[in-house]
């Protein structure tokens, strides 16, 4: 009974937090956008993916759901922050075990249930309804769509449970966490690239589509519950306070970034946050990981259309900037910056410092990626053009992201209005450059000037964005949620 009451209270808390961050309209538009986007994709999919087997499409949808769950479920590690009072001014129901007779494990179990319910209602229900709109045209029954919604959600729950358990283990034992990650990677390797296990033996909900047995759904549900329960059981009930000291000083970092001129103080602060939060490797690895994921996307497109499009180095370079959005978002999540509310600093100045650090952290990876693909494909002559496009898209896309979302990228991307503006700014140049890149083997004389021209336009368009950053963000306080009193 207590758990149900806590669940109800947490759902209200989540809803109100969401509304306070993106407003009632933005909050309501998010599931509506998912519905419309899914409807559109589902309507065009039978034509675009006509050469792709149904089994491959199902595999992709379920893998994407598992990855989504893995991304969402990494909150097991936040227990330490909650229980040692490191959430700053944020006060949430989950902090109750500090002062009330309720165990932290119970609270995390309720939190897990709340997140599951929230993502079901906010993502999977509108996604399934979007698919249902296109079902008659695609010759799929509504029952089939409902089952697809169910199996993808179960895949999401398995990913979330696994991620939750791994993050709970990471707090207890780093070596064990590494071992378990290696085991998960090993099992995944058995499926791909080794091909020793069929994917449905790992992603159990996928087995429903090969065996059409309700037992597979039962087994999937049990697995998701077992994984979540393991995560809850592994949560620590007590956390010891600690005193962290740092191996380098803020002033050393400021000297290191002296070349950034007037921003060196704030860039040094950002650097200290990245290093001391243990985020340096994750930031770089996630950026590189996203770039590598483009190979997967290009494979999907090639397999779906059924025509070899011989993706070249310029094609891959065009994605570099677009992959930077997640990295910039990561950088904005490390610190609340409330201290700066009382200093002569404005949000736009911190945004600029984050942009500088973003480019410092990613420029080398971006260049290595473009040069590496040029070497692999024997297209070194196209590398300069690729570097130009990669640089231009990086500056432009991350510039647009920071202009639209400031220091709250993760939160504001839940606002459908922001997402729509972002797409309007970013998708058209992306389409033009990628089509030009694909045309390059046939009509290099036309495609090359197009890529150069679009790159130049993107760079020129970035300048006013950066100039207007001050007008956009200077008057906004660092603390995003206002409190009266």
């Amino acid at each position, binding site marked *: 009974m207590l758990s149900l009451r806590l669940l109800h209270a947490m759902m209200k808390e989540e809803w109100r937090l969401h509304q306070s961050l993106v407003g009632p309209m933005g909050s309501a538009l998010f599931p509506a956008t998912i519905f419309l986007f899914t409807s559109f994709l589902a309507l065009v999919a039978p034509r675009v993916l006509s050469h792709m087997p149904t089994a491959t499409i199902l595999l992709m949808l379920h893998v994407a759901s598992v990855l989504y769950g893995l991304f969402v479920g990494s909150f097991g590690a936040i227990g330490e922050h909650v229980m040692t009072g490191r959430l700053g001014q944020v006060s949430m129901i989950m902090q109750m075990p500090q002062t009330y007779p309720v165990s932290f494990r119970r609270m995390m179990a309720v939190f897990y249930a709340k997140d599951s319910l929230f993502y079901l209602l906010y993502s999977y229900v509108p996604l399934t309804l979007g698919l249902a709109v296109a079902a008659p045209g695609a010759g799929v029954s509504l029952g089939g769509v409902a089952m697809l919604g169910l199996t993808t959600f179960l895949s999401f729950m398995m990913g979330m449970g696994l991620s939750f358990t791994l993050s709970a283990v990471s707090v207890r034992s780093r070596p064990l966490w590494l071992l378990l990650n290696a085991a998960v990677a090993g099992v995944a390797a058995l499926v791909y690239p080794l091909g020793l296990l069929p994917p449905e033996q790992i992603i159990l909900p996928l087995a429903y589509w090969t065996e059409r047995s309700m037992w597979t759904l039962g087994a999937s549900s049990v697995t998701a519950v077992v994984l979540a329960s393991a995560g809850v059981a592994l949560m620590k009930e007590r956390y010891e*306070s600690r*005193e962290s000291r740092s191996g380098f000083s803020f002033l050393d970092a*400021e000297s290191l970034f002296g070349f950034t001129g007037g921003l060196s103080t704030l860039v040094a602060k950002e650097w200290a946050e990245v290093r001391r939060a243990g985020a340096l490797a994750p930031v770089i690895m996630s950026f590189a990981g996203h770039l590598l994921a483009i190979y997967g996307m290009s494979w999907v497109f090639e397999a779906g259309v059924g025509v070899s499009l011989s993706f070249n180095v310029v094609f891959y370079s065009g994605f570099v900037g677009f992959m930077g959005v997640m990295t910039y978002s990561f950088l904005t999540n490390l610190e*609340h910056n409330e201290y700066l509310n*009382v200093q002569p600093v404005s949000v736009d100045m911190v945004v600029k410092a984050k942009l500088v650090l973003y480019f410092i952290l990613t420029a080398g990876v971006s260049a290595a990626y473009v040069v590496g693909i040029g070497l692999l494909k024997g297209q070194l002559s196209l590398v300069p053009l690729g570097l130009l496009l990669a640089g231009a898209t990086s500056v432009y896309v991350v510039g647009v992201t920071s202009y639209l979302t400031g220091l709250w990228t993760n939160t504001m991307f839940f606002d459908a209005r922001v997402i729509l503006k972002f797409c309007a700014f970013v998708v058209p140049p992306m389409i033009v450059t990628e089509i030009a890149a694909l045309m390059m083997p046939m009509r290099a004389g036309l495609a090359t000037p197009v890529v150069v021209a679009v790159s130049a336009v993107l760079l020129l368009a970035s300048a006013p964005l950066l100039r207007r950053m001050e007008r956009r963000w200077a008057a906004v306080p660092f603390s995003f949620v206002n409190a009266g009193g």
Partner: protein
Amino acid sequence: MHAIQAVNISKSFGSVRVLDDVNLTVAGGEFYGLFGPNGAGKTTLLRVLTGQLAPDSGSATTAGVPHTDPIRLKQRVGIVPEAETPPTFLTAQETLELTCRLRGLENMGERVEHWIKFFDLDEKRDVLCRDLSKGQRQKVMLAAAFIHEPELLLLDEPFINLDPIYQRRLREYLQGLASEGRTVFMCTHILEIAERLCDNVAFIHRGRIVEQGRLSEVSHGESLEDVFLRAVEGHQVA
């Protein structure tokens, strides 16, 4: 010259009117106390006066700078906010160094050492702020507000989380500032301390200033606590 002048300030959050046509004047060199029950609007008023929050209507000038120019305003004053939130991933010493840099101060080393010693933070100078106790974090926030020796200080519950030793040390420091002719504007619920420090007071209730003036004139010989209760609840305490 007025250190602070607020004219017809109103501010709402959603449907809740937190400040309702507030007028307030603080002369230079005053030690001014703002008191009110929880949720009365003290912190919101302080945030408006320090350029952290724009009012819906009205205007404020603090240290000669209008609220519409928050960077210059914050450069001129020292602010201690309601919550002790120094940078999570900087140490106590680094927080003060960052503050000196952001304010373009000279003699950074001397200033930092002075305040580290003043608040006895020597052993904790290299500890990340996230791992300091609330009291230690409050000391860092106070040191950061004082480090540029501003002419005007705006303090929201400055004594919170401090032990009696440092409450006393802070009280004496603030008294010293006032005797030098600097201005202190303070919100606090610790009325015993406020009574000893403040020359002028204002009481805010449900977003409106309900009484203000010199403490000696407002109190009529009563304690500040009695004046507070009378002003806020309209109760005549015997």
